[in-house]
């Protein structure tokens, strides 16, 4: 970040503290690939770093971060479609060692169910339920209308319902 001063650097670090973990998780769920997610998140924060240098660190926002991430993920998915590979990361999750903690197993099953959604629904679910973005913010990040977000969430819930029903029943969550 040009003209970096300690104050701005501290603000940027706070921004990373606040959204860094969520960003890597959002990218991972969107892309199904840990290396790709790591690349995309680094690129996203690099772009925000430059953006902060040009426009000031106060112009950074969660909406800007997730819009940047979404665009980068879209580019990476386009690349993946041209160079298809197996989503091995998902197998890591589903075929991993037995969990010693039952709630971790439940959360893993929830994640597995979410991973079975199509990419658009996954992004909506992540932004809306996990990132706590509003309908409007989710729509802005995905560059679609709120109506589209509503419909994608609706369909995601329809798809998740049968997948999650056994988990909800067994664990009375």
């Amino acid at each position, binding site marked *: 970040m040009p003209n970096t001063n300690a104050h701005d650097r501290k603000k940027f670090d706070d921004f990373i503290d606040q959204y*860094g973990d969520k960003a890597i*998780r959002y990218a991972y769920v969107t892309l199904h690939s840990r290396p790709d997610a790591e690349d995309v998140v680094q690129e996203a924060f690099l772009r925000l770093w430059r953006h902060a240098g040009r426009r000031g660190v106060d112009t950074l926002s969660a909406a800007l971060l997730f819009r940047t991430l979404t665009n980068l993920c879209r580019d990476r998915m386009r690349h993946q479609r041209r160079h298809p590979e197996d989503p091995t990361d998902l197998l890591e999750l589903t075929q991993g060692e037995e969990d010693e903690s039952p709630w971790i197993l439940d959360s893993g099953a929830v994640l597995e169910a979410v991973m079975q959604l199509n990419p658009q629904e996954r992004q909506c679910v992540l932004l809306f339920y996990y990132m706590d973005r509003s309908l409007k913010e989710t729509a802005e990040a995905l560059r679609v209308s709120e109506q589209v977000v509503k419909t*994608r969430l609706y369909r995601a819930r329809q798809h998740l319902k049968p997948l999650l029903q056994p988990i909800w029943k067994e664990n009375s969550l």
Partner: protein
Amino acid sequence: MSYDREKQLGELLDQALGEKLGLYFQPAWHPSHALSRRRTRNWRIALGTVGVAAAIVLALPFTVQLPHGHGAVSNRTLSAIHLPKRLTRIIAQVSQGPMTVASMVPVYASYPLARPTGHNLSITGTFHINGATGTSLSLLVNNHMQMQGGMIFHNGRPVYVFTGSNPHSGTAINAPNATPVQSEDHVKAQWYPGGNVAIGTFSAAGSHVYVTHGNLWSDMIPGSNDYWIQSPASPPATTIDSIAGLPADPADAVLTEESPSGLSRGFVTTNGGITWQGWGLGSASVSTLIAINHRFWAILNGTLAWSTNGFAWNSILPLNPKNWQVETYAVDPANPEIVAVSLIPISGDGLGPVLETRNGGKTWAEVPHFPAIGAAPTTMVMNTNGDIAALINADGPVVVRYVASQQRWSVLPIPAAPISAGGLGQLAASANGNLIYGAPGGAIYQWIANTDQWLVIKPPPGLDSAGLAANPLQAVGNNQILAGYPSGWAYFYEPVSESTGTVVAKSAIQSDVTRAGLQQ
């Protein structure tokens, strides 16, 4: 899934992604570290490149002429889009300097089969043709990357449009001038204050004027003080999504409230809001709820539906819900059998067709040749001739019109907004077919259909638009416009006779305003 479980969904995902998979942001990814690594790598690449270049220069005593530099992409994204040479040559005729393909959106112009029929390319750069200069080019190409049409924008405003493969065959789009709404000394067209709260939705039906604000609603009764009532949901909703009163029976209204999950529940009143009853559909995805004459209309779970009582809803578009959803729609105010819908594909980003039915949904036909703007309509309105106007919020607001008698779309030039005013526009229509356009920045423009002229209405005094377009923006009859802003709402009354176009007496205005329920 219940609401509680939906709340847990986020927590469980957090646990799975964090503690199970160990997905945490690593300090080494901080841009300051990444940048220094990238610089080192760039140095290595640069040195290597210099070495290779030197070897090539020594080994090849001739040079290869590079193609003309258009289509070269600077600041490449992870997978930059490359254009075929044939298309690049055509674009080069209008492009000056380097350009970048900013996006490529699939276009699905066939219904019901959801397969791409082409793409819409958005290209940034400097474009100059037939005296028009722009900063971005939106191109429609078919699956063989053959140009079908395009539009040049200058800072988000359309300045040139063409169809077919020859960009030179198009026409320039000049922003029209707008004149202030006329008034006479004894009778003024003016704003009347509505209230100092940001309203969510608005619906005028006879003497009832239904308004929502947060999770409150009100029926603004003439001559009485404002009163606000909490959402009928139990527990009360955080937001009332929309409200609509039936013009043919104004005591009938439908209210939808939005839960945190994004789904809505509906309530129906048949006595002007004294009592409300659940609509029996449970939670559903609802948007664009309106009432025209005897029917409520809404986009319900992605498709268009209507109801005469708010309880029984009839879908009139046999959509394959896996492929399509309705983005927006327009209904002929004189004939509910004539309806137009704008579709978008559900399976990803893309633009769908605009369809029209003239028999209540029995058959649908595409309204063809929608201009290459690069985005789907966000609002559509229809007049009693069956003409459609659509607002597209692309890089900037664009209004297009479909004239049924001519069976063609054309751009309706809109007055230029200040460069500082960005963002979304709003569109509404009066009963007589005049269009009301809410521009970014807060000003409202009225397009008079008979004369093809624009009038400008300054934002209401005392209300801060915060640089945004009026929202909600709605016409009531032919002479009134309601506009909401972040700091409050107001309505504008134009004392113009529908038949003669002349100013009418002030007493008549007050009578009309009172009848419409808007007088304070």
